[in-house]
Every structure is written in structure tokens, then in C-alpha cells.
């Protein structure tokens, strides 16, 4: 084992130790007491916007019977599409559509992985 390998290894180990050691400390006041800080959780977030949450509760929580009527599906989808640009957790499509898309995604992933597996073992 060369000296440079040992040096690189020691540098890596020291960096890893420092990383986990520093991670548990709070950031300095210079970092936390700023006006222009990104508001991940607070009231400034659109997620917590009263109007947005009102819209969200209408879309998600209320089981409006008209939504499931076949003749109303197209208008309903357009309403949902308008809500997509919001960062609120809006259901963008019906649960049935989501399940099918998820299932299709899973099948696609499996097929791609198996094809890669086959090609690497050919």
C-alpha cells in the first residue's frame, strides 16, 4: 500500500468523522437569523396559504358525488390540472388512474432491469 493511498484514506476517514461530528451542531446565528432564509416549514410557504388549503380541502377531503359522475369527469380533471402548479398536496387524478400508473411504472422498471440483467449476462 503506497503512502499516497494511506494519506487519501486518512483524509477520507477524518472528513467522514468531521462530517458526522459537525452535523449535530446547530448552525451559527449568522445562518439562522436571516430575513431572506428559505421558509421550508413556516407560514410563508404556499402549503400553509389559507386560500390554498381551502382549495385543497375541497379537492381532497370532500367526497363530492359529482366528481365521480361520468359526464363530469372532464371538467373535474381541468379543475385539478389548474391546481397542479400549487405546491399543495393536491390529488391530480383519480385514485384508480394513480394505481394504474404506479403499476405500469413498476412493470416498466422490472422489464428494464431484467433486460439490463439479460444483456450483462449474455
Amino acid at each position, binding site marked *: 500500500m503506497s503512502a499516497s493511498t494511506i494519506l487519501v484514506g486518512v483524509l477520507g476517514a477524518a472528513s467522514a468523522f468531521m462530517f458526522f461530528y459537525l452535523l449535530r451542531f446547530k448552525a451559527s446565528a449568522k*445562518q439562522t437569523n436571516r430575513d431572506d432564509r428559505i421558509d421550508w416549514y413556516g407560514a410563508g410557504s*404556499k402549503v400553509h396559504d389559507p386560500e390554498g388549503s381551502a382549495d385543497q380541502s375541497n379537492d381532497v377531503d370532500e367526497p363530492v358525488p359529482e366528481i365521480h359522475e361520468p359526464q363530469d369527469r372532464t371538467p373535474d380533471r381541468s379543475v385539478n390540472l389548474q391546481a397542479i402548479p400549487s*405546491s399543495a398536496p393536491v390529488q391530480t387524478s383519480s385514485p384508480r388512474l394513480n394505481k394504474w400508473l404506479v403499476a405500469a411504472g413498476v412493470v416498466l422498471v422490472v422489464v428494464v432491469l431484467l433486460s439490463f440483467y439479460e444483456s450483462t449476462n449474455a
Partner: protein
Amino acid sequence: MSRHAALDTFGRSGNPLIRSNAFDSTAAPGDEKMTLQGAVNKTSMLLAMTVLTAGLSWNIQTPAMGLISMIGIGAAFIAAIATFGFYFFFVGWILKPRPHLAPKTAPIYALGMGFAVGLISQTFEAQFPGIVLQAVSLTFFVATSMLLAYKTGIIKPDRNFLLMLFAATMGIVLTYLANLVYTLVTGNVFFVLTDNGWMGIGFSLLVVAIAALNLVLDFDIIEQGAERGAPKYIEWFGAMALVMTLIWLYIEILRLLAKLRSR
């Protein structure tokens, strides 16, 4: 309404796998709240899991292990999508984010991605002996430097920082997606991704820089979550995001070193 339409559309993180929906709730008065120490512990556990399966896929070279690795990688992708959701342009959220799943999906992700990391590392190590040790060391060195810069306030993430980073990250994601399509159609890869000239090295340096800057956002999310009493599961969520960015950074550093060594 935000001043930036992109922030409203895509959420508030530059990390492709973090969406603002994740932070839609705060801990109820009786619930356990997240702590910095908890996030550190979870990050350590997830990295240990990644190293464990990386070691397995590196050392055991059998067809059965190959199949297990592929299943693991697939499970990791599914776990990531289940937790962070899946957004498609012009369609919206096909699958909305479910951060409360993170305590279950984060270990699946870490174990599954470990197989991928092991296979990739083994391939590079066979070509360039010693490169993995260098890449691991550099990854932690870069991560520690970014953490130090964040904790001391040298780098201060604000909305403009977030917006620029988001745009750059999406640019890289789209480049890789376009390359995937191009490879499937023509059997070749984009010149800039494999070129060991200045253009290819410059591109790799740019990607490494963007991956490193994404770490700052992960630190900020964890820090702010602990400050504001986010629910306990955000520890897993933050740790998963951090591990995800670290794995990305490691792979990009590996590619950069390979380009430099092949000159």
C-alpha cells in the same frame, strides 16, 4: 403567491427528490419532534446499510447476486418515488409525496442503492485501481467542506440560490434522460458525458459542483426542521435526502476521477 412561478410549480427545493409538500405538517403537541442528533443517527444508519450491500455486490459476483442487485436497485427506485412522489411536466403529481413513509422506505432505498453503488464502484476499480478510495475520500471532504460553509454562514441559501440550483439540477436530469433515450435509440452516449477532454471534465466538474450545492439545501431542511419541531419521521426523510445526494455526489466524483485518470 410566491414571486417566482417556478417555486409555486415545483416546490421549494433544488434537490430533485425533495418537494415542499413534505413539510406540510408540524408535530402535534404530544408527538415526538425531530432533532439534529436523530437526523445524524439516521444518516449514519442509512450510509452503513448502503456500504453493507455495496460490499456484497462488490465481492459476490454470481448470477444470483446480479439478479438480487437488480431487484434491490428496482426496489430503491420504487421506495424513492413512493416517498418523494413523481411529478411529470404538464401532467402534475402522478404520485404525491408521502414523507411519513420515509421510516420504512429509507432503509429499502439505502440497501437497494448499495447494490448499485457496489456494482458501479467495482467496475471503476477494475479499470482504475484505487479510484474508489479516492472518490469516497473526496466525497466526504466535499460534504464536510459544504457543511462547514453552511454551519458558519459562508453559504447562505436563499430563494435565488434555490431557484438557480433547481434550474441547474433539472438541466442535468434532462441531459441524463435525453442521453438515456439517445442510447436506447442509437447505442451511443453523449460525447460530453464520456469525453476525457476539457469539455467532458468541465461538464463533470459542473455536475459535481451542483451536487455539492444540493447538499446545502439538505442541511438547511434538516436544520430548520429541528429548529421548528417537525415530526419525527422528517429525520428519516432528511437523512434519506442527504444520503441520496451523497450517493449522487460520489458517483459523479467517481466519473470525474475516471476521466482524469484516463487522460
